């Protein structure tokens, strides 16, 4: 009993609550529903509270990368900085600017937070611990993310400010653009596992993680989730020089804080989604007998992916909007299409002809990667020589530079 409780606290608590509730005379179904409610409340609360830690950790780590100290005044190493910030924000006025569309204006940040928290409903946290084993889990992640886009559009529209509206347009253009390769690449784990259920996807990664079978898909998903998060190098939503602060310009105090919370939580959530889809989720030695170990593995993988996104944020400079969109439509989307088709064909061939799935897929990925690199190189060369010839031509004839190709 004692060991079981420590090894599998989730199952134990669930069982205890279940016996308690059925003891009160509730039917099995109602007791399960109450348990779901309790689980949902706990999950949402833990997530929102954990942003305190996430924001602090991110600021601290980012500061170290940039050779600064970061928050270090409130509490040891400044851990309570975020709490202090929250208290300050609570004491600030939430200004309702003139001419805003009140209901939409206040609903927008809440929807953005919801779209991040909602993703966790389908993520398996440990063996047997999952909000709901939805059979359309992968698409559910996409669907909930779409609500976030809607929230941004609503924020921009209701603010009665042209910068906010422009920022929202740009943000949504970026988000929907990067959603194309993301959705295409999500098909790869679905193909490999033969299911959209995230629990099944985790279970199917038992001999090898999908990151080994489909490294390119993982890479594309990582890049697109960075862009979906709107962080550097894709933080064009907040081009101070042109857009003021983007779609959230007119928000103040905690209403603005909600966008902030959503952004930081989104980085962590993206890490969790990648860990689940490509890094085997809770998989690890001993995870099945001791689910608590599975949770530790899951958390560790998530934190590693989260740190990776932070690292990128700390090191890569912001790119221009035309570069960002060109990168998406001319590199990522064709690459995602290529990865999807080659995975579909190679995996089937391996299954039909009895080849090694891992090696076949890896080989296919390698070929796609090499072709992509060669194409990019050729493109860069052509571009360079074109620019050079233009520069010379421009010097001689002073003709207007042609941007048409």
């Amino acid at each position, binding site marked *: 009993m004692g060991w079981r409780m420590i090894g599998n606290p989730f199952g134990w608590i669930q069982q205890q609550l279940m016996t308690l509730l059925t003891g009160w005379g509730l039917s099995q179904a109602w007791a399960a529903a109450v348990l779901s409610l309790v689980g949902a409340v706990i999950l949402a609360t833990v997530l929102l509270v954990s942003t305190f830690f996430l924001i602090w950790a991110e600021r601290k780590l980012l500061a170290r990368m940039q050779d600064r100290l970061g928050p270090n005044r409130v509490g040891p190493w400044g851990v309570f900085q975020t709490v202090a910030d929250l208290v300050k924000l609570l004491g600030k006025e939430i200004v309702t600017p003139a001419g805003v569309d009140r209901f939409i204006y206040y609903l927008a940040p809440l929807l953005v937070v919801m779209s991040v928290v909602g993703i966790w409903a389908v993520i398996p946290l440990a063996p047997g611990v999952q909000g709901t084993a939805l*059979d359309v889990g992968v698409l559910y992640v*996409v669907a909930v993310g779409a609500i976030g886009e809607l929230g941004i559009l609503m924020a921009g529209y209701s603010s009665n400010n042209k910068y906010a509206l422009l920022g929202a347009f740009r943000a949504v253009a970026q988000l929907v653009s990067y959603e194309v390769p993301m959705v295409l690449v999500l098909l790869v784990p679905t193909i490999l596992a033969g299911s959209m259920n995230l629990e099944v996807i985790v279970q199917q990664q038992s001999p090898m993680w999908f990151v080994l079978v489909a490294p390119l898909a993982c890479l594309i998903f990582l890049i697109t989730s960075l862009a979906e998060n709107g962080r550097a190098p894709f933080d064009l939503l907040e081009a101070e020089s042109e857009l003021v602060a983007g779609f959230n310009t007119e928000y103040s105090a905690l209403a603005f804080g909600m966008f902030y919370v959503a952004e930081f939580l989104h980085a962590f959530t993206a890490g969790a989604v990648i860990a689940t889809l490509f890094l085997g989720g809770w998989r690890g030695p001993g995870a099945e007998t001791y689910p608590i170990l599975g949770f530790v593995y899951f958390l560790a993988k998530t934190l590693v992916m989260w740190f990776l996104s932070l690292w990128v944020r700390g090191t890569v400079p912001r790119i221009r909007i035309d570069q960002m969109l060109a990168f998406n439509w001319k590199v990522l989307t064709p690459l995602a299409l290529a990865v999807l088709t080659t995975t579909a064909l190679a995996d089937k061939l391996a299954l039909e002809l009895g080849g090694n799935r891992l090696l076949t897929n890896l080989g296919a990925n390698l070929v796609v990667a090499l072709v992509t690199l060669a194409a990019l190189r050729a493109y860069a060369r052509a571009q360079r020589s074109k620019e050079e010839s233009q520069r010379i031509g421009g010097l001689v004839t002073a003709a207007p530079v042609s941007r048409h190709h």
Partner: protein
Amino acid sequence: MTLLQLIFLAAAALTLGAAVMVVTTSRLVHAALWLILALAGVAVLFALLDAPFLAIVQVVVYIGAIAILIIFAAMLTRRVMQDSGRQTTRTWWLGLLAALLLFGGLVVLVLQVPGFQAAGGAAPDPQANLIDLGRSLVDVNAFILPFELASVLLLAALIGAMFVARPESRKPPGGKSGTPGGEA
């Protein structure tokens, strides 16, 4: 009245109420947002009908894509038709009459068929159902032709819409290649 029936009634009320707002509210963007609510109500109904895939697709395609497209278009064409202007045609009452007549006819028709009171069979297993759907889409004896035609349809829509909507005054060599009245 069972819990499921209550949920159905709530979702139905949400859908119909939001739909009425779509066709009556005068602010176009508000109409689009009401449309999203109506579509979400239909998604709930799909979930009630044991079609989780369609429910989630409803959210992904309609709310996540089509509704955003509509809002974009509503904002792009916003300047001419300020929301204060007359929103309904002069013959709107004819439309109302036609809609009501049709509704009456449909109600009479639906209530006359006795088989429609029947309850459905057991709920299909969602995973097996999805596999079935995926198989039948690419099966030569099933829906392979519609499946590939859908792809062609989407291709035609993509090319056609891009051709129609693309900025026209793109002067190739030099000069200012901006869209008329375009900004940022």
